[in-house]
């Protein structure tokens, strides 16, 4: 077949090497999971900066060590409360438990003269025992957590006061000293106080527990939705009970560390601690949120409150005033955080769409062929499988005249020839199957949005070929994952070329990529021999249809929003694309070979002067996404489409339209097969078939690619 275009004579298409947009960076950060912790984190930074500016030498190594030494007991209690709150409970007895455990430690050490390890054991048992009481009442018996733990708090405080009145003088005047005791209380390991090590280890443990362990997940499930957790087969009561016991145990450890450090307790030990811990938790989690396991955020919240408290005290403010100031600051942080959380979705929505000015050249080359200028040839098409399929984005026919297409519910269906009335599920793939191609062995390679590239053989076995490519150099968002594999074609050497239409939108919102008008897509390749995925060309504007030219040496890529077809030279892919044809009258979707050496181009929608103009006003589009409800966003006309026929040099030679309100309105794919054109539409529920007068009745796609037989 003769090639009628001169690649080197085609105009080069401009592809940016790097897309820089501050708004995009912001929006991508906002869409990250950890953004939930942003406000606590910012509060933390503010506190740090505030302290840095006002207190000289506060962050000296010495004082950092002090901070670390005194942070451990509070930090551990915060973690303990965190576990209980995550499980959907609350523990007001942490302060009393803390004092009691500390007292038990001192009693065992100074009065009973027990070895330090036994002292530790006694403290842990004390803490855990109080946890057992709480857990049994609040978890197993189902009493209200607030009142239950308030009860234990008062009771334990009473026992503590009684016991300490009797023993404290003796403890204070005890002369016992012990190297291990003193080491735990006042020494450092790797220049970090021992207590702080304990805090780090427990925090890491809690982190791992909530991220990795079955118990941690159960706790979060029980806290998030008790009923759902129970239905999910989780022993909710037992889980909550264990959460209380674990919390008690951690408080016991905290009391032990306090005792070792201070070597004393006073009647006010642990008083108000539950409120301190609750405050830290609320600041860290941005509210009283059960079922959330963000350990890092909680620790940031703790650090914020702890440093704020400490710095204010050191600044010479009285502690009652400090409490007032803390209360005010906490209310402030919370109000910001609640607002932020409430508006995050909107903020994200309004910053996510990040439009850029794009000027699409005036439609050209289709004069006299527009829908209002010629007869609607598609009005004469047969409708196949009408109402039996949902969303055949691409259609393909195999050598046996069977018709295949993907559906919105993640299936690849086969519509058997020659009458095309019987629709059956050929393979269950999942995701959203889009572009299709047949390889030399007759296997179907499927682009699946939200998944990647999948291959289905004649035995109907589904194999995931690839779902990620290399990460591009400068991106906040990890863009290794193939987000919207759109169309695919296979070169004679077996290498699969496919488009990832947009890295920023999912299949439900792919149209928003138009409002953005940015080069968000890329052309990828997958080599079945090496099993390697490569990014051929990044930063393309919605690369959609992919089609090997008839000579097998070039590849056509439809760039939907620029209304053009790009062409790559397979022998020199790195040279980038040239424009095969531009100024199309509509938005090109899939491109496929025609029997006469030309190409079919599906138009998913039509351009219009207003939309073309709006594309030059990025600010307008951005403001629109903020001021107007999404249903009213100005949009490309996807309610009318059609098919363009190009000759082998890319000139438009014919156009096929349905009547304006006809059933074949948005054409996303078409295949010529044995003298007929089969038409698919991603929002349609039928496939059109148009007999082509004058087309080669023997020509088929598989033959064209892989030869007869």
């Amino acid at each position, binding site marked *: 077949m003769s090639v009628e275009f001169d690649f080197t004579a085609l105009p080069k298409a401009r592809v940016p090497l790097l897309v820089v947009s501050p708004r995009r960076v912001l929006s991508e950060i906002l869409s990250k999971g950890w953004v939930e912790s942003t406000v606590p984190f910012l509060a933390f930074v503010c506190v740090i900066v505030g302290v840095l500016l006002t207190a000289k030498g506060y962050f000296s190594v010495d004082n950092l060590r002090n901070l670390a030494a005194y942070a451990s007991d509070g930090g551990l209690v915060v973690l303990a409360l965190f576990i209980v709150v995550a499980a959907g409970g609350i523990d007001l007895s942490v302060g009393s438990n803390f004092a009691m455990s500390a007292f038990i430690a001192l009693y065992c050490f100074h009065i009973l003269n027990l070895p330090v390890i036994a002292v530790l054991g006694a403290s842990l048992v004390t803490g855990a025992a109080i946890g057992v009481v709480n857990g049994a009442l609040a978890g197993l018996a189902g009493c209200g957590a607030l009142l239950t733990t308030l009860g234990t708090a008062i009771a334990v405080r009473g026992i503590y006061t009684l016991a300490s009145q009797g023993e404290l003088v003796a403890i204070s005047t005890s002369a016992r000293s012990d190297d291990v005791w003193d080491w735990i209380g006042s020494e450092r390991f790797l220049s970090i106080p021992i207590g702080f090590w304990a805090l780090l280890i427990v925090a890491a443990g809690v982190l791992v527990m909530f991220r990795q362990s079955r118990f941690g997940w159960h706790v979060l499930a029980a806290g998030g939705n008790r009923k759902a957790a129970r239905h999910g087969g989780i022993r909710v009561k037992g889980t909550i009970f264990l959460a209380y016991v674990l919390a008690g145990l951690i408080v016991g450890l905290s009391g032990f560390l306090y005792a070792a450090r201070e070597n004393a307790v006073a009647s006010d030990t642990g008083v108000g601690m539950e409120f301190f811990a609750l405050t830290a938790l609320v600041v860290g989690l941005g509210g009283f949120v059960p079922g959330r396991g963000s350990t890092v955020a909680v620790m940031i919240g703790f650090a914020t409150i702890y440093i704020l408290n400490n710095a204010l005290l050191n600044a010479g403010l009285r502690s009652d005033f400090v409490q007032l100031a803390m209360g005010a600051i906490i209310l402030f942080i919370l109000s910001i955080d609640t607002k932020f959380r409430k508006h995050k979705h909107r903020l994200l929505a309004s910053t996510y769409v990040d439009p850029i000015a794009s000027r699409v050249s005036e439609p050209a080359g289709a004069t006299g062929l527009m829908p209002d200028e010629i007869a609607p040839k598609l009005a004469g098409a047969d409708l196949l499988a009408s109402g039996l399929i949902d969303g055949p984005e691409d259609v393909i026919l195999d050598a046996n005249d069977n018709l295949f297409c993907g559906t919105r519910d993640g299936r690849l269906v086969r519509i058997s020839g020659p009458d095309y009335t019987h629709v059956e599920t050929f393979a269950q793939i999942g995701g959203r199957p889009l572009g299709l191609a047949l390889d030399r062995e007759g296997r179907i390679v499927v682009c699946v949005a939200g998944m990647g590239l999948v291959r289905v053989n004649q035995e109907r076995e589904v194999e995931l070929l690839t779902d990620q490519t290399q990460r591009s150099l400068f991106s906040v968002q990890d863009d290794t994952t193939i987000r919207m594999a759109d169309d695919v074609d296979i070169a004679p050497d077996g290498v699969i070329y496919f488009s990832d239409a947009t890295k920023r939108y999912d299949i439900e919102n792919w149209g928003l990529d138009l409002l953005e008008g940015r080069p968000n897509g890329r052309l990828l390749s997958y080599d079945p021999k090496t099993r390697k995925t490569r990014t051929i060309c990044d930063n393309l504007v919605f690369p959609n249809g992919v089609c090997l030219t008839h000579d097998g040496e070039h590849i056509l890529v439809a760039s939907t929003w620029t209304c053009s077809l790009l062409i790559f030279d397979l022998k020199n892919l790195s040279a980038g694309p040239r424009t095969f044809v531009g100024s199309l009258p509509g938005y090109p979707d899939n491109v496929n070979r025609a029997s006469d050496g030309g190409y079919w181009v599906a138009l998913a929608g*039509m351009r219009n002067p*207003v939309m073309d103009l709006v594309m030059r006003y990025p600010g307008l589009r951005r403001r629109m996404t903020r001021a107007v409800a999404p*249903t009213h966003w100005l*949009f*490309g006309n996807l*309610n009318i489409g059609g098919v363009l026929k190009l000759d082998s040099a890319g000139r438009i030679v014919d156009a096929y339209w349905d009547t304006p309100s006809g059933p074949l309105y948005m054409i996303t794919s078409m295949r010529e097969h044995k003298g007929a054109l089969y038409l698919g539409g991603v929002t349609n529920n039928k496939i059109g078939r148009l007999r082509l007068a004058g087309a080669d009745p023997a020509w088929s796609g598989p033959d064209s690619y892989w030869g007869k037989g």
Partner: protein
Amino acid sequence: MTLEGVLGPNNRLDEARGIPIESPDALSVGADGRLFVSAGRSVLTLRKWGETPQGCAEFERPVTALASSKGGMLAVGLLGGGLQVCDGSSRALSGWRPPAGLKAVADLLFLSENELAVVDHGYKPDEPLLSVAPWDDVGRGSLIVARRDGEPRILASGLNCPMGVSLDGQGAPIVTEFERARIVDVSGAVRQAGYPGYLGRLRKTGNGYLLACLSRRDPLIEFLKTEPAFVGAMKTTIAPRHWIAPRVSPEFAHDFPIELGATRLFGEIKPWAPSFSYGLLIELNDALMPVGSAHSRADGRRHAISDALVWNGDLVAVSKASAELLNLGSARGPA
């Protein structure tokens, strides 16, 4: 006002009985009880619903307005500002001249047998009003009284695209403004504002008014009004027929944009989809507050209601989009 409550969507227009009329626009009930309906360059007439409309007059230019007097005269507005008054047998009567400088006749109303109120919206025939008026800030319309054998009297000028005239309870003229979606009197005072549509004619009924709306308000167009740079570019670089604006017809057109929520699924448009054309007829009480409404939604075809009145106890309306005379059944209340 939004399309909620008494203005909530229904299918009354789509369910109404219809008689196809070629290019209908205006309605009028004659002194003898006949219904006149304009059809392009002619005026048709019916004695009762169900009859085939009979031609009763033909003009050189398309008819844009109709009005009947108690004495049996029929006033006819013509495209480009023409005016003719005929008697009951469609013979032209002398002494009536269109006021000088009239650009259009949007609506007519006999104030007496010698006085005829003429609404001039100010747009020339080559200016597609629906495309242009929504983007205009200058009021170029006026309300003029033409007098038989007398000089015309200007009642109000500088009106923003006036489309219809009626009389209030005291007999003073009140005028609808298409783009401003409000009803004003001749002093320019606003009688009622905030209607959710692009206003057409206003007709007095026994206990209130009927307000025909050519389309509904669209949040996107309202938003674009705050984008002067874009609107300026649109006006200078794009032909008015391609402008984003309310439309008469719900037909899909390849050269007109859509709103995101209007994309078809399985070829169908959802009734609740946003649309630039819409069928909306609002029933108002004496205080011009809505008390009822009839709709043809995004998936309907009886859009662009240009006129409506009560005839023989029935609510009759004109849909320009479907080119039909509609009968919505008996009008509410004591007609």
